[in-house]
């Protein structure tokens, strides 16, 4: 295995892991406030199609990115209305949101299938430009890739070092106690969902506007669910999520490398490893409370009326 192929896997992992990481960060915020968003798949699809459509019309990928982000936030607010205001079951509402996303994104994106867009421009890292083209093109990233790690650190800081984050986690642990100590669980959960939606929108924007430069129906192909698995794998921690996302997408990149080296290992079995690893990690943690999910995850907050 040459240096080039190792760097190649790393580069591929970074390219394809970025959208996953943004989405995972969004879901971490949702779940830290006590809400499971199973509709991520739908949220991403609507964001991706809306962002792609706007990019195709306006020719400006940054405008498309903005629309993606807003679309993601709005989609999550629908979930917020159902599970926070109407106190509906979170899993069912999430799945309903997923089906909504399937339909709405197909509708929005249909005229733009096969449209040619100007993707997010790739900016070379300073200092790398005098390397051979082959190497420098490995690490010529777009804006969203450069931003993803700072955003992950920002999310960590927001969750663990600010009053807002403290309140959000308190609501996720126990909404009643949080309410008793003067916080407004409903508002906090809406904020968390909106913020999470914005991040999922960024992930979708990277997928459609920067990475594939394409829109097709159901193009997320399960990424929303991978993000949910990643949240668990990274123990609801944004910093661990960076490692998790790299590992998950690195597995795909490594699988492709093996495939094109003529090594006969089923790519499908390799693709299952992240999920099985997550389950194993969960089993190893066992029932110990220290590692467990936010305590009121999935609970309907009945309020105090």
């Amino acid at each position, binding site marked *: 295995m040459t240096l080039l192929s190792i760097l190649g896997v790393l580069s*591929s992992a970074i390219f394809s892991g970025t959208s996953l990481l943004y989405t995972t960060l969004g879901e971490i915020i949702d779940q830290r406030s006590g809400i499971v968003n199973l509709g991520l798949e739908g949220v991403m699809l609507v964001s991706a199609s809306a962002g792609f459509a706007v990019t195709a019309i306006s020719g400006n990928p940054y405008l498309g990115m903005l629309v993606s982000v807003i679309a993601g936030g709005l989609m999550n607010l629908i979930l917020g209305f159902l599970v926070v205001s109407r106190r509906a079951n979170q899993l069912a509402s999430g799945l309903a949101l997923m089906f909504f996303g399937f339909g709405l994104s197909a509708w929005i994106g249909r005229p733009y299938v096969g449209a040619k867009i100007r993707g997010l421009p790739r900016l070379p890292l300073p200092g790398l430009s005098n390397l051979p083209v082959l190497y420098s093109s490995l690490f010529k990233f777009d804006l969203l890739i450069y931003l993803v790690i700072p955003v992950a650190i920002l999310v960590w800081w927001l969750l663990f070092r600010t009053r807002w984050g403290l309140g959000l986690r308190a609501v996720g642990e126990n909404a009643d106690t949080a309410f008793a100590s003067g916080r407004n669980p409903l508002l906090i959960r809406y904020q968390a969902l909106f913020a999470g939606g914005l991040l999922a929108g960024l992930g979708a924007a990277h997928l459609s506007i920067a990475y594939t430069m394409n829109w097709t129906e159901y193009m997320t192909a399960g990424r929303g669910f991978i993000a949910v698995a990643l949240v668990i794998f990274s123990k609801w921690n944004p910093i661990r999520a960076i490692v998790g996302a790299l590992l998950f997408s690195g597995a795909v990149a490594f699988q492709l490398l093996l495939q094109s080296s003529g090594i006969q290992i089923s790519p499908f079995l390799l693709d299952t490893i992240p999920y099985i690893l997550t389950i194993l990690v969960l089993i190893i943690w066992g029932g110990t409370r220290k590692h467990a999910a936010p305590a009121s995850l999935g609970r309907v907050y009945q309020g105090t009326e």
Partner: protein
Amino acid sequence: MKTKSLYSIVAVVMTTVLLLTACGPAATPTEAPPEPTSPPTKAPTAEPTEPPEPTEPPAEVGPCLIIGALHGGPINDAGYNQAMHESVMAIKDNIPCVEIIEAENVPEEAGATSTMENMIQQGAGMIIATAFNHQYPALELSYKYPDVIFEHAGGWEMGANFANFFGEPPDAWYIMGVAAGLMTETNKLGFVAAFPLGWTLTFANAFHLGAASVNPDVETTVTFTFSWGDSAKEADATNSLINQGADVITMHVDSPTTIISTAESRGVYSIGFQSLHAQEFAPEYWISGTGYTLGGTLTWLASTVVDGTWQPIFLRCSLFDGCMAMAPFGPQVPQEVQDEVLAVSAEVEAGTIVVFAGPIVDQDGNIVVAEGEVLTDDLMSSVDWFVEGIIGSPK
């Protein structure tokens, strides 16, 4: 109070809607034309053009034939489905009296049956199914509806009212391989394929044989995405190939847009397939490409259905019969390369070059086509080997 009034509003609206839907025909005058899919009125279509086709359009009221066309993906994908869609639409251009009902993103296998049933219930007398996995549902329906003609693209089954048509791409792939072999500097070519399908392996083999014929050092790496249209996987695969040093990328998936855009963004040459629209995605690093142009063939098939002379024939037609076409060369392709590619193309057309003439050796060194023999079409569809020089697993 408030809720009560809301309730009554809903009740009123609901009853209105129910009434409107219940007595449907009475309610139609609300909108201007009740049927958007109205037949192509009696416009004076008889004179204006002298179509090259054997049929003259009978200028009568109502369509002379309703054609139901179903595609497995979106009809504007700049790839396979768009090529097929445009071919189907060419029928309408040439025979104005036909009416076409189209459906895109139709589910595979038995999921397509209800779409075809609905088309037949809408009066379709001819069904054109262009997705690979629509062959068996179409064949099964052909027994149920003996009066409807079924044409399927790219399969092998035949029946009394069921036939298969398609282009004949291996020659085109060989010619593209020549172009790739001449253009590559790293001597590494990348091929992103959807499935280890017999035809796909044949295409990759033809491509590599073409490249190796002008550049003996060349290697072709094949990577599968296991989906006709998973853009993210396609981008992953393209990046992986480029990272391993490939500097010409080609593909056999439904829509080439992601792969070509990715190659373009990394400054790597690409060769398109499926639709001639692919070139729009690589303004700079485009070499060339081939696409299906089956409009003439489908027009002829439809005309035989219109005049009642349709016969179930297994129809395959090549680059040189107009069923496929070559895209123009890109700006970076030198004149010598263009000339050489066109010369090879002429030789293939003349029959002096036969792509799969033996001896052909596979990856493991076994002779798969013996000296003096030629791989037949039948065998091409079930190829399960890669020729020597291709890296990747044919399974």
